[in-house]
C-alpha cells in the first residue's frame, strides 16, 4: 500500500482534472463495478412482487408518475450500484435486499427519479418541497444572496436536464440512491457546483511548486529529516483511516471539534479526547520508529523536539499537501472576513 504516492496522484488528479459528478453519475468503486458486472441479473427482480408493490406504495411513487415496474427498475439500479449495502463480493439474499430497500428514503427516491425522467407531477412536487430550501442552502453555502440565487438557478436547470451533452437528457437526480435525504444530496451537489465555480473564478498555484515548501528561516530543518519523514509516514500508515481523517481535518483544515463531531457522528468531547490520545500515541510511535531507524533516544527527541506540540508542526509540514489554504478555509475567508 503505497498510500503517499496515491495521495499525491489523487490530489493532482483533483486539481488538474476537476471531478464532474454530472459526468460520473455513479462513482462506483472499481470493486463494486466488477461485482456488478459479475452479476448482471438485477437483484431487485428476484424480490417477490408483493415486496416491490409494498415499497412502491410506501414510496407514493404513483403520485410522482412512476409505475410499479419503473420503480422496481429504479430500485434494482440502486441495489446494483451499492450492492444492497453489502461489501463487494457478497451476494445479498432476498431478505437483505428487502431490508436494504426498506432502509432507503423511498419517497424521495421515487421523486428524484421521477423528476429525472421528466414527470411534471414530480417536478411540481419537487419545486414545492425543495425550491425554497435549495435557494436558502445555496445562499448559506456561498454566503452571498446573489451568488446563492444564481447557483440555485443553475443547479435547478441542471437538475431539470437542460444539459444534453450526448443528445440525451440526463439529470443528476438519477444518481441519487436514496440512502441519504434528498435535501442532503442537493446540498452536497450545491457544494460541488460551488467548488467548481470557485475553481473557475479563482487562480490556484500548481501543486508541484508547493509539495516541498521552503523551510521557515527561524525553524531550521532537523539534520535527520529523512528519518523523521519516513517515521512519520510509517506511523501514519499504521493508524486507522478515521484517525487520519481526524488529524487532517483538525490540524490541516482547522475544522472545529463540532464540525468533525458532526461528520463522524460523535460528541465533540469524544473528538477532543481522541485527538489528545492520538497525539500522545503518535509521539510514542514516532519515537519508537525513529529509534528503530537507528537514532538514539536523544536524537529522536531532538528530531521531534522536546515539546510534544512539535509533533503537530511536523505533521503539518509533512502531511500538508498544499501550502495554500484549503477550499473550505478560503471560502469562509472570502465569505465571512474576520472570522478566520
Amino acid at each position: 500500500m503505497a498510500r503517499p504516492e496515491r495521495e499525491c496522484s489523487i490530489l493532482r488528479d483533483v486539481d488538474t482534472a476537476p471531478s464532474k459528478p454530472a459526468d460520473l453519475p455513479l462513482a462506483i468503486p472499481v470493486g463494486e463495478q466488477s461485482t456488478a458486472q459479475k452479476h448482471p441479473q438485477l437483484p431487485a427482480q428476484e424480490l417477490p412482487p408483493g415486496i416491490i408493490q409494498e415499497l412502491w406504495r410506501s414510496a407514493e411513487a404513483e403520485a410522482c408518475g412512476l409505475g410499479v415496474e419503473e420503480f422496481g427498475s429504479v430500485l434494482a439500479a440502486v441495489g446494483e450500484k451499492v450492492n444492497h449495502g453489502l461489501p463487494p463480493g457478497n451476494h445479498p439474499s432476498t431478505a437483505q435486499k428487502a431490508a436494504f430497500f426498506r432502509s432507503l428514503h423511498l419517497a424521495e427516491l421515487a421523486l428524484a427519479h421521477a423528476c429525472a425522467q421528466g414527470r411534471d407531477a414530480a417536478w411540481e412536487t419537487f419545486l414545492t418541497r425543495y425550491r425554497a430550501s435549495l435557494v436558502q442552502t445555496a445562499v448559506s453555502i456561498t454566503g452571498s444572496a446573489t451568488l446563492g440565487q444564481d447557483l440555485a438557478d443553475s443547479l435547478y436547470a441542471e437538475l431539470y436536464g437542460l444539459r444534453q451533452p450526448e443528445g440525451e437528457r440526463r439529470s443528476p437526480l438519477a444518481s441519487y440512491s436514496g440512502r441519504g435525504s434528498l435535501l442532503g444530496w442537493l446540498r452536497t451537489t450545491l457544494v460541488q457546483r460551488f467548488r467548481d465555480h470557485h475553481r473557475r473564478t479563482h487562480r490556484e498555484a500548481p501543486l508541484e511548486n508547493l509539495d516541498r515548501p521552503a523551510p521557515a528561516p527561524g525553524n531550521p530543518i532537523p539534520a535527520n529529516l529523512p528519518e523523521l519523514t519516513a517515521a512519520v509516514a510509517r506511523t501514519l500508515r499504521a493508524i486507522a483511516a478515521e484517525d487520519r481523517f481526524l488529524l487532517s481535518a483538525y490540524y490541516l483544515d482547522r475544522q472545529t471539534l463540532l464540525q468533525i463531531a458532526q461528520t463522524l457522528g460523535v460528541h465533540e468531547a469524544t473528538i477532543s479526547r481522541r485527538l489528545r490520545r492520538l497525539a500522545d500515541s503518535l509521539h510514542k510511535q514516532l519515537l519508537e520508529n525513529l529509534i528503530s531507524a537507528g537514532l538514539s533516544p536523544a536524537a529522536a527527541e531532538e528530531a521531534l523536539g522536546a515539546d510534544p506540540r512539535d509533533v503537530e508542526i511536523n505533521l503539518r509540514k509533512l502531511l500538508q499537501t498544499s501550502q495554500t489554504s484549503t477550499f473550505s478555509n478560503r471560502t469562509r475567508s472570502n465569505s465571512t472576513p474576520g472570522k478566520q
Partner: protein
Amino acid sequence: MSEPLQFVHHPDADQISAFVEHALPAHEREQMLDHLAVCPECRAVVALSLPEVEEPRQSQPAVARKTWWSGWTLAWPVAAALTASALFVVYIRHAPIAPVAREQQVAVADSAVPPALHEQPIAPAAGKESPRRSQAPPASSLGVVAGVAVAAPKSEREAPLPAQSIGGPILMGRNAVPARPPAAPPPAPVARDAIASPGPDLNRVPAVIAMAPANAAEARPEPAASIHAAAPGPPLDGQAAKASVQTAAASTAVTSAPIKSANSDLSGIEIAQAPTKVPQLQRPLPSNLPVLSMAAQAQRIVAIDTGHAVFVSKDGGKHWKGIQAPWPGRAVKASLVEFPAGSVKSLTLRKSATAGQSRENDRPLAQNTSGALAAQTASSLTANGPRLSGAVTDMTGAAIPGASVTVTESATGTSRTVRSDNAGRYVVDGLAAGTYGLEAQAPGFQKKELEAVAVPSAGQGIQNLSLAVGTPTQTVTVQAESVEMDSSATANAKFAASSQRTPVFEIITDNGERWTSADGVIWKHM
C-alpha cells in the same frame, strides 16, 4: 482495507451526502474516511455539506477537566452554612422577645405570715428591663416590704446577692426617694409573686414558686399546694395561680422543693429556675403560633403569641378572641399586676440615725428592694452570721460594678475589702455584731466613707453606697448607722392590712409602654 476498494475518483454527491448523514455502510464509510484523510477537497465538500451549525465554537485541542472544587461539590455546604447563619440571625433577633424565659423567680413562703402577706409583691420581673428600671421601687413604697418576689436573670442567679432586688427585712432610710411612677414597674406583679418572711425569727415554708410569663408551666401538685397553703385568703394570687395550674397556663413554674414545716428555718429557701418551655394550652391560639407570654386570672387568660398578637380567653383557654392592639409597637409580655386599694403603708421601721447623705444612700436600697435578695440574705444569715451588704451605685442609681468596699471594724481596726459584682452589690459576711466603718471607692468616683455603720447581732446590715462622680482623691464622709429591720408580727399585720389589691392584666410592649386591663379586652395605658 483492500486495495481495489480505494477510490479512483472522488466520491459523488450521493456518497458524500450519505456519509454526512451517516447512512453509508461500514465498508463504504471506511473507504470514505480513507479518502477524506488524504483529500482536502472532499473534506471541504463534506464540511460544507454539514447541516447548519448554530454557533461554531473555537477548536480546542483538549477539553480541560473540571476541577474537583468546581460545580456543586461545595455549593451545598456553602448553602447549608448560609442557611444556618440566617437561622442563627433570626434566632438572635427573636430571642430577646422572650427575655422572661430566662427569668427566675424566688419566693419564700412563710407559713407564719398571715395569708394576706403572701400576696405582697414588690419587684416585677426583671427580664430585659434595665437595671435602673428594675431597681426602681414600687410606687409609693417607702418602707420595707415583706413578702417580695424576685425576678432575676438566670445568669445572676448564683450571684452573692440576688439580682436587682433586695427584699426581706430591710430597713430603709427615712427619706427614701419614692419611685418614679412612669418608669417604675407596677407595684404589684401577681402571678410571679412570692412570699417571703419579714423576719428571721419567723418560721418559713421554703416552698418556692416561680412563675414566668413566658415560661412553660408544668402543673404539678406542689405548686398548687404551696400556693394555696401560702395564700388561701385573698383571691388575688391564689386564684390566679390556681387558674394557671388548672389551665396549664404556662406562666407557672414551681420548684419541687418540699414544703417544710412551719418551724423550719431559712435554710430551706431555694431559688427556682423557671423552665424555658413553650406554654401549653388546651387549644392553640387562633394564630397557631407558640405562646410568647401569658397571664391568667381565674378562667380569664391573656396570651401573646410569637407574632405579638394578643388573645384573650374567658373560659380557661377553650376559646380565644383576638384583641385589636391599641398600643403602638408589639406586645412582648403579659402579666398580672395589682393596684393597691390605698397607699402602701410602710412597715414600722426602726432607724436609729441618718445623717449626711443617707438619703442618697437609701435610695438604691429602696430601688433594690426585692425578695430574692431578702431570701438569700436571710438564708445565709444563720449560716454565716451577721453580714453587711448593699449596693454601690452612682448618683443616678446606676450600679457600679467592681467598686471596692472596705469594711473596718471600729473596735479592732480589722478590715475586709470586697468588690461589688456586676449589679453593684456587695456582701461582707461573717462579721461580728458591732459598729463598722464603710469605705467605697471606684475609678472615676469620689471615695465615700461611712462611719459607725452598725451590724446587728441577729440580723443583717444593709448599707447602700452612692458614689458621686469625681476623682478618687475626693472623699465624702458620712456618718451613718445601719438599720435593723423590725420583723415583728405587728409590722407584718400592718403590711398585710394595707395590701388589699385588685389584680389586673398588664401588657408590656417592646417600647416599654404598659397597658392594663381588668378584663383583658379593654386596655388602658398607664
